[in-house]
């Protein structure tokens, strides 16, 4: 079987349709656009089509996926790629850096030294820690702590800091710690060059290790507290948390060869909605044999599905909720105890509720903190054997579990060392159908037949935020991101429009 660009560069598969995906007689319906979603990383838009009685007839999440990558990277020497790809995303540059480095390991035929692999793992766990901390303490917690209907002024970072100063402080400091791990391993706070094809360009010094060791036990302790907060929130309002936007689907992630949680390396595993294993020990370097990307005319973002099940049944979730349930165990004791508590909560059945992403995200943050602690006591971090090479290959695939889910980088490099092809499948693309299903569920439950209010529209955003979508969109210049809500009639005329001007937009 050929790689994705071998026969069909635009993806493949038929255009299957799901309930509420496409309305009949759309020209007679009113259209509401939420554009862009607040507190979602990137450019997303939700459109709702309502009939004259405010019944929901169609719901779509449109995401402007990054399209220029191939052009950007083509013709570059392969060793530049792990550095360049960090500029694709200002939120998770380390994930792209490491996925590209892993792909280039294949190109140079490297088998990593223990030092190289452990320094990279340390960097990756630092990224998981800081990303998950930001999401839980500052993006999700306003919704969770204050309620979905709370006023906009409270639903932001500053709102949390005002009402829960200790929580906000721990969130900021956890994030700071993760970033210091990245700085030490990558060499710089941003635009680091730590991972290179075949290894790393630096190990840790004794002083750097001691610097990170100093605070790691507090980081583990705070991460434990965060798991407890997430668990209590879920248990205290179980009806809401279990049901909000809930849909059944398969789940996909990589796991270690022995079935343990592994966010850095492993083999593809998928379970069906009942938890039965559908795919196991899938070869990451031939991911296209398992995963197909479908193109739909209304969305720039592709819809991946498991080849064996087809587009209607084969779509899946990725990210913390999938990973924590896909693995058989976690190799650190506190996180594994937290995982078992979560599994017990599901009473032997997989948990599918989007709001459970928050709980599992914190279990992973705890796992990352414990893994950082263990690595900081491993002398391999101080080693001097940093880079290896072997037989050269033309194709390189790097798969990593980024904070938001499975991230695939795939390159072809010619005999002149230049990249000729590139294909990326980011976590948000894997979750595309899942997020669409979640918001359709929410629209059915909360919006159907009711007059739209900002609080109701926030319910849609709460469902999307649970997946923590992140896009390859590191541009952010002042004035580019006003929040606009439009009400458009069936003829396409704008009836009403609300734009929230910000300090920044007046620059």
């Amino acid at each position, binding site marked *: 079987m050929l790689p994705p660009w071998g026969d069909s560069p635009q993806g493949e598969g038929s255009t299957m349709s799901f309930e509420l995906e496409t309305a009949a007689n759309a020209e007679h319906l009113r259209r509401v656009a939420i554009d862009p979603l607040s507190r979602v990383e990137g450019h997303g838009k939700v459109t709702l089509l309502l009939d004259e009685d405010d019944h929901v007839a169609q719901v779509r999440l449109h995401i402007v996926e990054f399209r220029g990558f191939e052009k950007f990277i083509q013709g570059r020497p392969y060793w530049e790629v792990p550095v360049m790809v960090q500029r694709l995303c200002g939120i998770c540059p380390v994930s792209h850096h490491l996925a590209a480095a892993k792909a280039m390991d294949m190109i140079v035929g490297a088998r990593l030294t223990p030092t190289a692999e452990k320094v990279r793992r340390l960097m990756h766990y630092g990224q998981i820690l800081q990303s998950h901390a930001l999401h839980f303490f500052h*993006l999700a917690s306003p919704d969770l702590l204050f309620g979905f209907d709370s006023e906009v002024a409270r639903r932001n*970072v500053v709102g949390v800091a005002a009402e829960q100063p200790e929580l906000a402080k721990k969130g900021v400091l956890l994030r700071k710690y993760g970033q210091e791990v990245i700085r030490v391993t990558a060499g710089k706070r*941003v635009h680091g060059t730590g991972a290179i094809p075949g290894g790393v360009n630096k190990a840790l010094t004794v002083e750097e290790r001691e*610097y990170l060791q100093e605070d790691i036990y507090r980081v583990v302790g705070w991460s434990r507290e965060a798991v407890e907060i997430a668990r209590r929130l879920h248990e205290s309002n179980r009806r809401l948390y279990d049901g909000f936007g809930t849909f059944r689907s398969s789940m996909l992630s990589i796991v270690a060869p022995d079935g343990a949680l592994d966010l850095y390396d492993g083999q593809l595993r998928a379970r069906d909605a009942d938890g039965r294993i559908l795919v196991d020990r899938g070869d990451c370097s031939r991911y296209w044999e398992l995963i197909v990307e479908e193109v739909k005319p209304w969305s720039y973002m592709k819809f991946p599905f498991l080849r064996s099940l087809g587009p209607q049944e084969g779509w899946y979730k990725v990210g913390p909720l999938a990973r924590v349930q896909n693995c058989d165990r976690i190799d650190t004791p506190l996180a594994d105890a937290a995982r078992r508590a979560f599994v017990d909560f599901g009473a032997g059945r997989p948990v599918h509720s989007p709001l459970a992403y928050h709980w599992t995200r914190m279990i992973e943050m705890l796992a990352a903190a414990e893994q950082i602690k263990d690595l900081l006591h491993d002398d391999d971090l101080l080693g001097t054997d940093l880079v290896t090479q072997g037989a050269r290959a033309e194709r390189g695939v790097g798969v990593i579990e980024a904070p938001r889910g499975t991230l695939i980088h795939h390159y072809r490099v010619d005999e002149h060392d230049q990249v000729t092809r590139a294909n990326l499948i980011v976590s948000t693309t894997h979750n595309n159908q899942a997020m669409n299903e979640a918001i359709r569920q929410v629209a059915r439950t909360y919006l159907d037949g009711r007059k739209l209010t900002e609080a109701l529209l926030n319910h849609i955003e709460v469902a999307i935020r649970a997946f923590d979508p992140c896009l390859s969109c590191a541009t952010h210049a002042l*004035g580019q991101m006003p929040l606009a809500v439009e009400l458009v009639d069936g003829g396409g005329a704008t009836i009403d429009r609300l734009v929230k001007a*910000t300090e920044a937009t007046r620059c």
Partner: protein
Amino acid sequence: MLSLQPPPGAAPLLVLAIGNPSRGDDALGPLAAQRLVELALPGVEVLTDFQLQVEHALDLLGRIRVVFIDAAASGGAPFELRPLAPAADARHSSHSLSPAAVLEAYRRLTGSEPPPSRLLAIRGHDFELGAPLSSAAAANLDAALAALMPALQVAVAPGHEQPPPA
């Protein structure tokens, strides 16, 4: 590391330049940072990042003055240099925080007022991935940095070399 105390030896003036060097005129911030680093101004620390996040509030600890530099997709050309006051973001986006929201986060986290801060918003025009800096933006950058220089020198006037006690 895990405290709200200023790091020892923090330079009294912080320049925090924001932008993605690979996105056309979004590189204005990092390019401004690069020029300032090359000048090695005494008492000035220059940091750069893709975008502002809540933890940048911690970089403000122990400073007597802060300058944010960013590309602006709209507004006055060649640049605007104006004081900043703490304010929550109306857009409440995590895509990035505005400079004013970083100041507000500082206030909420520390319970004290942030150091006096200004925003240097340099007008950009083309933000395409892989595009070079436009010639108009390059000219705007020169003008903006020339205007900023007096403010950077004031920071190291006698009596202002050290940050105030925490």
